[in-house]
């Protein structure tokens, strides 16, 4: 088994450093940030264009307006694009064998990778949030929430991203059993799009689908942060943050379990790859 | 003449920095069947020269002809007449069997079935890779892969074979094997060889002529025999000892002396290596002993009287 760092303080310092590394390397890759924003702007603009052409009654049936649904999409896309394809690093390191050297560090491989990835995600959110909000404002001419709600939205966006990251870590680790993570990623991502309410708030879904969605962690990833912005009343905000916290705890427990199983599988030589 | 270079020059233009001249006024000719080594330290201009001769780079000035073609202007036609082996890039199809890669290359080079079979049989015999033909490339060791790469580069019967660091990363045995095969193959196929390498062993075993390049210029263009006589006789013996401060002995020149370590330089033409080794074993408590050629950089410095 890999060595463990002897003090919690030492481990925390290492993880904090990994976070800073992820943060600074993302800011250094300006062209990638630009590419992510271009992608974000194209998706938001195209869908806003579609929503603008709907019959007004269509959205009203779900108690939605054009501005609300565009801002909703601005926030779900922010979370989805900030994480991107985080699973790939883990998949690639398992497949090319470089994970071998990484497993013998005194801080767990998955913990370090996750910390670095959180740093990258935080950097992307920070880079996209303002221009994204500016674009949404330009498309709608309004903002559905005031400055007072921004902290709650920010916390909820990070919680959504952390949930999504946990899923991506689990997907990446699945490489150890399936030899590739891509198939699992495809399914997980599309389920997230549907059951997490990427394009449409869950409020617009058929009732049975809403029930199914809330049984999964996907709404905590996308719907929750976006709906906090649309319905910034404290009962709703508290409910969404609670749901996110619940799934966050469960997801990262699953990550710890998967990480332990992965190390055991790797060290005992049973790797499918 | 199968290769002719006249005043070849290459200057690279960089944004936000000064232009950099990698090769300057390089002149040489190579005859059919000749085996020539291009040697020089990193950044000397070896790979740049090779790329100009194979049509992968335009020169800034100068002219060249390879097998009658101007490389950068007639690259595709030239490709039928040359073979290229990159030490660090593979031309084979990673997941497929070696045989499949060969079949495919035969189609790419438009080889008729009969000619392809005859050539493949001959080359695989010389390189002793018959047993590897049905193995996927990804399962081959580096030495096996390099032999297959060379075979692949020779299938279409090129007049010139360009080899860019072909023995890089190979162990001693694999290097020796590859060098033997290359030499025999070049003789059997009457193919000129142009080889770049850091490894003096490659030069000594494969080539008959050496072109030494540094800072983009040719410093030396001589038969190997002359180089051997002048510069390759120096050997370095590194001794690791139990003694903390090993004392030098005899007429050997001390190159480096440190804790538990002594490096000596001897002229192998005047001083018997076995005698030096025997003396070392007698005087010192030896833990390890290595004999190697003097580093190429030092030969070059020595060549021009520069201080190390």
């Amino acid at each position: 088994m890999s060595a463990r760092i002897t003090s919690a303080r030492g481990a925390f310092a290492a993880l904090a450093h990994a976070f800073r590394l992820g943060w600074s390397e993302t800011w250094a890759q300006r062209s990638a940030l630009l590419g992510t924003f271009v992608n974000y702007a194209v998706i938001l603009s195209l869908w806003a264009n579609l929503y603008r052409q709907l019959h007004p009654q269509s959205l009203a049936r779900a108690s939605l307006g054009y501005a609300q649904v565009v801002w909703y999409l601005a926030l779900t896309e922010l979370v989805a694009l900030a994480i991107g394809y985080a699973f790939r690093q883990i998949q690639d390191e398992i497949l090319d064998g470089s994970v071998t050297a990484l497993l013998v560090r005194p801080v767990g491989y998955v913990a370090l990778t996750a910390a670095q990835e959180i740093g990258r995600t935080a950097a992307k959110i920070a880079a996209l949030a303002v221009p994204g909000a500016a674009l949404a404002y330009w498309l709608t001419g309004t903002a559905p929430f005031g400055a007072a709600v921004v902290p709650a939205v920010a916390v909820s966006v990070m919680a959504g991203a952390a949930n999504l990251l946990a899923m991506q870590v689990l997907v990446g680790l699945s490489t150890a059993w399936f030899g590739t993570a891509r198939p699992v990623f495809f399914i997980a991502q599309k389920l997230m799009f549907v059951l997490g309410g990427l394009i449409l708030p869950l409020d617009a879904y058929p009732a049975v689908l809403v029930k199914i969605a809330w049984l999964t962690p996907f709404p905590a990833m996308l719907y929750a942060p976006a709906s906090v912005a649309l319905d910034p009343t404290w009962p709703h905000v508290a409910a969404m943050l609670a749901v996110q916290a619940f799934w966050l705890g469960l997801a990262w427990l699953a990550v710890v379990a998967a990480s332990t199983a992965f190390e055991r599988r790797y060290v005992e030589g049973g790797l499918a790859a | 003449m199968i290769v002719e270079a006249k005043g070849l020059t290459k200057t690279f233009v960089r944004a936000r920095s000064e232009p950099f001249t990698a090769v300057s006024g390089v002149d040489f000719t190579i005859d059919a069947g000749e085996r020539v080594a291009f040697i020089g330290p990193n950044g000397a201009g070896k790979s740049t020269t090779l790329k100009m001769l194979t049509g992968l780079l335009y020169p800034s000035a100068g002219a060249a002809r390879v097998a009658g073609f101007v490389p950068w202007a007639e690259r595709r036609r030239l490709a039928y007449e040359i073979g290229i082996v990159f030490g660090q890039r593979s031309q084979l199809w990673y997941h497929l069997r070696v045989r499949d890669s060969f079949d495919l290359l035969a189609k790419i080079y438009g080889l008729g079935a009969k000619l392809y079979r005859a050539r493949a049989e001959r080359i695989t015999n010389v390189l002793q890779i018959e047993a590897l033909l049905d193995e996927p490339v990804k399962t081959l060791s580096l030495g096996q892969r390099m032999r297959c790469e060379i075979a692949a580069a020779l299938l279409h019967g090129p007049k010139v074979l360009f080899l860019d660091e072909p023995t890089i990363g190979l162990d001693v045995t694999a290097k020796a094997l590859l060098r033997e095969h290359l030499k025999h193959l070049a003789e059997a196929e009457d193919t000129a060889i142009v080889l770049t390498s850091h490894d003096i062993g490659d030069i000594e075993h494969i080539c008959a002529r050496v072109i030494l390049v540094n800072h983009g210029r040719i410093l030396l263009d001589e038969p190997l025999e002359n180089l051997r006589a002048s510069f390759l006789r120096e050997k370095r013996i590194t001794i690791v000892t139990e003694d903390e401060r090993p004392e030098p002995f005899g007429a050997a020149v001390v190159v480096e002396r440190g804790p538990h370590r002594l490096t000596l330089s001897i002229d192998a033409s005047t001083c018997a290596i076995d005698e030096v080794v025997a003396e070392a074993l007698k005087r010192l408590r030896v833990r390890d002993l290595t004999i190697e050629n003097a580093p190429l950089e030092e030969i070059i410095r020595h060549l021009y009287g520069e201080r190390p």
Partner: protein
Amino acid sequence: MNRFAWIPALGLANLRSELLRPWNAALLGAFMAINNFVWFGVWALFFGLAGDVRGWTLRDVTEIYGILAVAYGIYSAFFGGARNVALFIQNGGLDVYLGRPRSPLLGVLFSRCDPTGFGDIASGAVLIAWAAGSPAEWLLALVFATLGASVLVSVYVAINCLAFWTSARPRLCDQLFESFLQFAMVPQIGLPVFVTVLLYTVLPAAFIAFVPVEILRAFSLGKAAAVVAAATVFPAIAAGLFRLGLRRYASGNRALDVR
């Protein structure tokens, strides 16, 4: 020997290389197909709420998505190396292809086969079959998808060719291509004029699936000719850009491969 024999041989070798692990290929294909059906669910939810968008219904958009999926599947299964162009420009990987007496661009295009492409083709065909009004429409849609693949691959190559002249990294090229695909995926109705002009010229996303579906809804010889023209003109433009870029590559005025 047939002077073009190397093309199918190269393409087949590429395919065989990936199909050596048939279960892996089948798994990837199947999951990609499921991926596309789940995305269909997103459209179904959208149109469940919307009803239609200026007369465009779920069937129309499904046909767009199906044609795009087939086109994309053809790219990734047979011409998957298009995404490697920028990478090979930057790491000198083009050298291997330049050293051969054949088209380096085709060599690069055939250098990668992604088995998810087969899942895209199969699921795309199923989605078109659901949306199409007749077998003839289904067949015609597949023909359009093949033409669309030509445009799609050309755009990917052209975007990657940026690496000849700029420091555009492979990741940025992928992101720009993903943005391009978004244009191709969504019905291009009610867009600002300048965007529409772009989508019919510099960023020919309209010709991949949207115009074909317009033709399938109401046949227009002019539009059909435009789609065929796009499928021949844009590959020529991409090949021309690549050839121009090769001159710069061979001038060496980029990062040297220094050892």
